[in-house]
């Protein structure tokens, strides 16, 4: 059994917060897409994975330019998400099972594409030589913590705050929130909901791909990360409440910290803890912590 010391608790909380921000990037888009389009978008794991892989390649070819890697990954997210919504999901409107199944199909397809292009050798991870301002480590209670973790927390909070402001302070954001409540009613008010759908889907895909790019200096990209991160983001979204932006933020904080606690102290049970938390939340409050009963 691992000895629990105060330093380790602090370090695991910092790791947990950084992990939570990555979770938030993938889960928030997932949650908004579910709220607005009513699709449980399994392809979100694929966007995350593609973001991670494209970032490693761009990083290598652009002379270790991290900003370019992040931007390129975001662009890839949009380029994948928009056609998927426009050409396939839109055709299947009114058949939710088929919509879920086809996104599952995309996850399979992209997992295969990734293992064909990049192979099964992990890409990126701790070997990536980040710019010096992010590469070092900070000593917290005599233990070195990579600076990158602090960057992730900072970065995630900025994205969360700006998305929150976008959703609450702009007209488009208001439409998205109204659409989450009742998309038909919004359409009846004379708003082109389909255009809002495609924007939201593209935005969610871009956030997931950005999350993948931000994760890759810490967590190496393998063909499995699509599925495993999809599962964690499912857990996060369900814990927070499907369709709730606020829920996905607090849900990812809860699951992120719990997950990293498990990684530090009971490594055999990491996945069990995530799913057990989800099951417990569902049984006590089936609509999630911040969800509304419909």
């Amino acid at each position, binding site marked *: 059994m691992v000895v629990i010391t105060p330093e380790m608790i602090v370090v695991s909380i910092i790791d947990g917060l950084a992990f939570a921000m990555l979770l938030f990037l993938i889960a928030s888009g997932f949650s908004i897409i579910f709220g607005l389009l009513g699709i449980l978008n399994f392809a979100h794991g694929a966007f995350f994975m593609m973001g991670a892989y494209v970032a490693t390649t761009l990083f290598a070819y652009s002379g270790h330019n991290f900003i370019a890697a992040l931007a390129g990954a975001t662009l890839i997210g949009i380029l994948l998400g928009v056609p998927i919504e426009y050409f396939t999901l839109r055709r299947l409107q009114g*058949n939710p099972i088929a919509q879920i199944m086809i996104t599952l*199909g995309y996850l399979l397809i992209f997992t295969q594409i990734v293992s064909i292009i990049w192979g099964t050798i992990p890409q990126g991870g701790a070997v990536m030589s980040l710019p010096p301002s992010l590469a070092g480590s900070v000593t917290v209670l005599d233990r070195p913590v990579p600076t990158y973790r602090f960057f992730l927390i900072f970065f995630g909070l900025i994205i969360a705050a700006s998305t929150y402001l976008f959703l609450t302070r702009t007209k488009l954001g208001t439409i998205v929130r109204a659409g989450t409540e009742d998309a038909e009613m919004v359409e009846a008010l004379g708003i082109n909901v389909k255009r809002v759908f495609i924007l939201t889907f593209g935005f969610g895909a871009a956030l997931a791909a950005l999350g993948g790019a931000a994760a890759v200096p810490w967590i190496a990209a393998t063909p499995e990360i699509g599925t495993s991160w999809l599962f964690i983001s499912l857990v996060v979204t369900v814990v927070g409440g499907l369709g709730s932006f606020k829920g996905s933020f607090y849900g990812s904080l809860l699951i992120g910290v719990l997950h990293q606690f498990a990684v530090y102290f009971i490594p055999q049970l990491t*996945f069990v803890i995530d799913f057990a938390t989800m099951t417990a939340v569902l049984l006590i409050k089936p609509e999630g912590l911040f969800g509304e009963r419909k």
Partner: protein
Amino acid sequence: MNLKISPNRLFDVLTKKKTVLAILTVLFVFPLITPSRYSMNLLAGVFIWALLAMSYDLLLGYTGLVSFGHAALFGIGAYVSVLLILPPYNIPFLPAILAAMLFGALLCLAMGVFSLRVKGIYYALVTLAFAEMIYAFFIKWVHPILLKKETLRVPVPDFVKSTSFFYFSVAISAAILIILYIAAFRDLIKKGVLARTKILYAVLMIVFLALLIYTAPQKLHFISEGSVKDKLPTNMYFFALMPLTICYLIANRIVNSPLGRIFVAIRENEERAKMLGYNVFKYKLISSSIAGIFAGLAGALYAPFLLSINPDTVLSALVTINVLLFSILGGLGTLIGPMIGAAIITIFARELSSYFVIELFGRELSLWMLALGVFYALVILFLPYGIVNTLRWKGASIRKAFKGLVKSIKISALRKQPATEGTL
């Protein structure tokens, strides 16, 4: 449960489903006609996946429960049967299969008591959570700590290897055939009308019977002279086909009974079923337990077929994805559809996967999974209700169009007649 199974009702089901009867006859006679080890082995796998797909259809197609935890039932069935056969317990295979079915049902009950309290997509996620937890439990706990090895080798049960099992299975299939024939002929005699299609049907059956009788001695000789290796695939074929047939007949009986109607009522409108006074929770539990029994059985049959099992082959989410794919491709709510889906994909995977290997960037790559994924997406996009359902609708509309055409010809003929008469 108002589920009466009397021989007469069973015969009715058989005689009404001519296609199923024909398929069953062909399947039972097939190994006696071609003794190819490869095709026997391939089809045995198809039957096991078909059984699993059928059990999934009871849940998703008939009761409308989107479960993502089907792999858990399959895997538990496989592990329970194998762990009971292996040394510490040394239980014979048949009781082990029964135990696997029991465990499948119990697991379903345990999962259902928790997960059926939530609905729709939440139910799917809780079942996924259960399946992933069981997978993690096996990969992190059972294998490294209890078993101390990564894969579990499965001994082929002695009776499957034996020649007497072959004779036994031939006897069983003969018995099944005789029952089917009696049923069919009883239908012919009872109706008293030897319609043309029925004569054709009878002739076809007689041809099959003749082929069977003609080729049986040859095949029996081959089997009794051949080594265990020659016998095993054929025995495996019957070993998988017999449970599949029995389970199909039972499932077919269930979905056509009042119980099955209640399942469909729940699928169509749960609130309405509740208002009509049905205990929806209870019926969902019954439905998932039946599915659990069949899935456990499929798992128990899959273990000796695969010869070694590990959590990745029987418990991972890939099993669930496969079953989903079979069901979607074949058509939900048809029982036979998912089986056809399983057959198509399993056979194509074995036959075509070698053509999808290419050399790219100096590596040998298999594009098969990619092709399968694209195929899957195309099927959902263009046949969202599956092959069988689409065929039924198309068939119905073609028949309707044909009838309409006949009618319009008749009408125009009728219209012409008065006109010609009028000139007189």
